[in-house]
């Protein structure tokens, strides 16, 4: 298991390097630069600005300097748009915010999605099943950019219960709406996925055996059926959690949380190269780490997988 983990970590290094190089050159292909503006800078001023940020060097030199700074000093460079700040600084401010409501959103997805799916499967083809399935489909067709304004209308403007945005150091009232708006459609997927796999598990021979042995229904479901039924859900959750964090751009902008999603958008518009690259690296490392975590959890749950490592 340990050597497996180490092998996986080692394999990611060349992947990351290739990714940085590709992203680095791709960004430069976009017309315009960080200092292109409606009022074009006079040549002498532009020269000073480019020199200050090292953008006057040939591209491969810039790339080399960038790599060196990351490896030797863990320095991802200055932000070109937020001139008083570095990329490290911006990410260390925004990432905790995004990951906090991303985490609560994931909790919401699992705590609502799994029970909904399990209940629907246990009461297969009953009123409960139809209600749950209906609810799940309903949530899935509501994208967050429709759901979020509706929630704000209801909870902020009409009921006056929750603030319409902001973060305020991460008080719960500021987390509720972003977490729910972000998670709802994933919650629906989880519910449907759980329902399907639970149904399949409940019809498998080992459950029939358990029933034949006369085990109480509760033990059958909790001890024997739930664990294997959750495998597809867990596999699904890893990329979803990354999507939830990286795909939370809309939530960050709409609820003004101060999370990194806003930086990703702004970085693209303002050609803030170092910011974009920094975030791309962060997202890739995150994707890799969560994939690894899921594989390990999988191995822990499923003896067949464990044997194969």
């Amino acid at each position, binding site marked *: 298991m340990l050597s497996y983990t180490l092998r996986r970590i080692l394999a990611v290094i060349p992947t990351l390097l290739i990714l940085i190089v590709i992203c680095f050159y791709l960004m430069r292909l*976009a*017309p*315009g*630069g960080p*200092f*292109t*503006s*409606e*009022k*074009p*800078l*006079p040549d*002498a*001023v532009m020269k*000073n*600005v480019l*020199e*200050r*940020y090292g953008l006057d060097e040939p591209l491969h030199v810039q790339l080399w300097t960038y790599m060196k700074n990351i490896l030797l000093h863990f320095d991802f460079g200055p932000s070109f*748009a*937020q*001139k*008083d*700040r570095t990329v490290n600084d*911006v990410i260390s*401010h*925004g990432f905790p915010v995004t990951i906090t409501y991303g985490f609560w959103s994931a909790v919401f997805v699992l705590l609502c999605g799994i029970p909904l799916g399990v209940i629907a499967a246990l009461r297969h083809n009953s009123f409960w099943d139809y209600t749950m399935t209906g609810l799940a489909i309903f949530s899935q067709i509501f994208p967050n950019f429709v759901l979020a*304004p509706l929630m*704000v*209308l209801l909870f*902020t*403007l009409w009921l*006056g219960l929750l*603030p*319409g*945005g*902001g*973060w305020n150091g991460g008080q719960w009232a500021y987390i509720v709406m972003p977490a729910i708006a972000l998670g709802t459609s994933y919650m629906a997927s989880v519910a449907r996925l759980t329902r399907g796999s639970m149904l399949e598990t409940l019809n498998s021979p080992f459950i029939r055996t358990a029933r034949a042995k006369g085990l109480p229904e509760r033990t059958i479901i909790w001890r024997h059926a739930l664990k294997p039924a959750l495998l597809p859900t867990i596999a699904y959750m890893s990329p979803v959690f990354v999507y939830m964090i990286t795909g939370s751009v809309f939530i960050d*902008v*709409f*609820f*003004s*949380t*101060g*999370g990194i999603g*806003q*930086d990703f958008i*702004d970085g693209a*518009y*303002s*050609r803030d190269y170092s910011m974009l690259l920094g975030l791309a690296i962060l997202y890739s490392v995150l994707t890799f780490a969560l994939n690894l975590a899921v594989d390990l959890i999988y191995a822990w749950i499923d003896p067949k997988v464990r044997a194969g490592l």
Partner: protein
Amino acid sequence: MTRKSILLSALLSTTLVAGAYAADLPAGTDLAADQTFTYRVLDEFSSFDPQVVEDVEGANVVRDLFEGLYNQDADGNLVPGVALSHTVSDDNMTYTFTLRDNAKWSDGKPVTAGDFVYAWQRAVAPELASPYAWYMELMSIENASAIIAGEKPITDLAVEAPDDHTFVVHLSQPLPYFAKMVTHGTTFPSPKWAIEAHGSEWTRPGNIVSNGAYVLTEHVPKERSVRERNTMYWDNEHTVLDKVVTLVIGDDAQALTRYRAGEVEKTDIPAGQYPALAEEFPEEAYALPRLCNYYFTFNMSDTGPEAFKDVRVRQALSMSIDRNVIVDQVLQGGQFPAYTFTPAATAGFEVPDVAYAGMTQADRDKIAKELLAEAGYGEGGEPLSFTYLYNTSDAHQQVAIVASQMWKQKLGAEVTLENQEWKVFLENRGAQNFEMARGAWCGDYNEASTFLDLLTSPSGYNDGKYSNARVDELMTTAKSSQDTQPLYTEVEQILADEMPVVPVYHYSTNIMLKDSVEGWPINNVEQNWYSKDLYKVAGE
């Protein structure tokens, strides 16, 4: 105060009109108990460093945190800031400012002329590489250009501090509106000791030392910033607002919702919603004239279409645009139909009579058809077709669609609309890689040359590459002339004759501002506002 009287008072070395600064409370005002003003900004600020900041919202904060030589009052007139008055030498090339002796930094140190020398040198320093270094060049400070180009050391900048309360500036050419330019953030003083102690982190709350009416006490990037009353400020006793909070809200509609919920007290009105909001909140919705224009620019360089080289074609396209339809029916935000390049709101500028402004639209349409036929295009001639390029945005798209329909119906022109992402658009327009493109300009200072200089041959912003020797000559003369109106009138008339650009409208700012907030400078066309001039009244 008009520009003329500033000059007059300056020449006579009199003090500027005092009294109109600081919150101007009518007797018996019932102030609200909580003097916290919260407003919405669209984006995170570019910086709080006066010499580095480049965005408008950032400049608004910097104007609260730092105080320059002069401030503006509610009408945009100059009032004393750190400087009480100034004198100008006979050749109009040397300005001597007298600074007040009671101005203090937030750490208690006195504000001296040396702080201005340091800041102005900093603004042009190649190491700092401020994008706004060009502003110092525009101010015509002697040696500024050479220092930016790296040819001279920053100590050669022609600014001096003979004593702590005298600040002297030498110009490379007379500049009649020089005094007006010192209300800009780039010219504000900066605290050398704090910058040296904290380096690039000197603007963080706790590190920052400032001399304005407020100090920065909290800053969460992309979420909020808080500035609170600076007790060391020389006029602190007349300041009313205790605390000013900005919330970053990237979505216009969401900002309006949060305004309705009472979370912010000022926000921008989303495009197209002004009429409805003005009806719903007659006391809170404002359409304020703004120092910006909106125009279509013809590519007159070699890469441009042959048709646009014919003045009759340009005239016809301009005449056939019904500006009232665009303003009243499409934009609906209190904008002004434009027939001149310079907005009417510009200080000291009288809109000259240009022939086509006085005609009815029916007459204009008739002339347009005739001109196009004469040029050999349209009905019976060669079909006129071109591409109109604009940057992606709903509002620009609406204007583009309406304009192209007008051209099609009236002149039979086939116009292809093309939109591009902002920076791609700028790159293409700047490289003359377009046929006709959208243009817009906001004044850097409140004087007509900030607009008209754009259409001179050497201007780096003249993307249509229009060139007229007489315009260049008039604008050069205007730089040192005391009576610029006749010069600007002639330039505008040449522009109306040759039509290198089609003026469409002059902007307005549409804002929602709570009834309880008083003192907003609605007549200041630059919308340079100071929190120290605002106050909140108790609700009835």
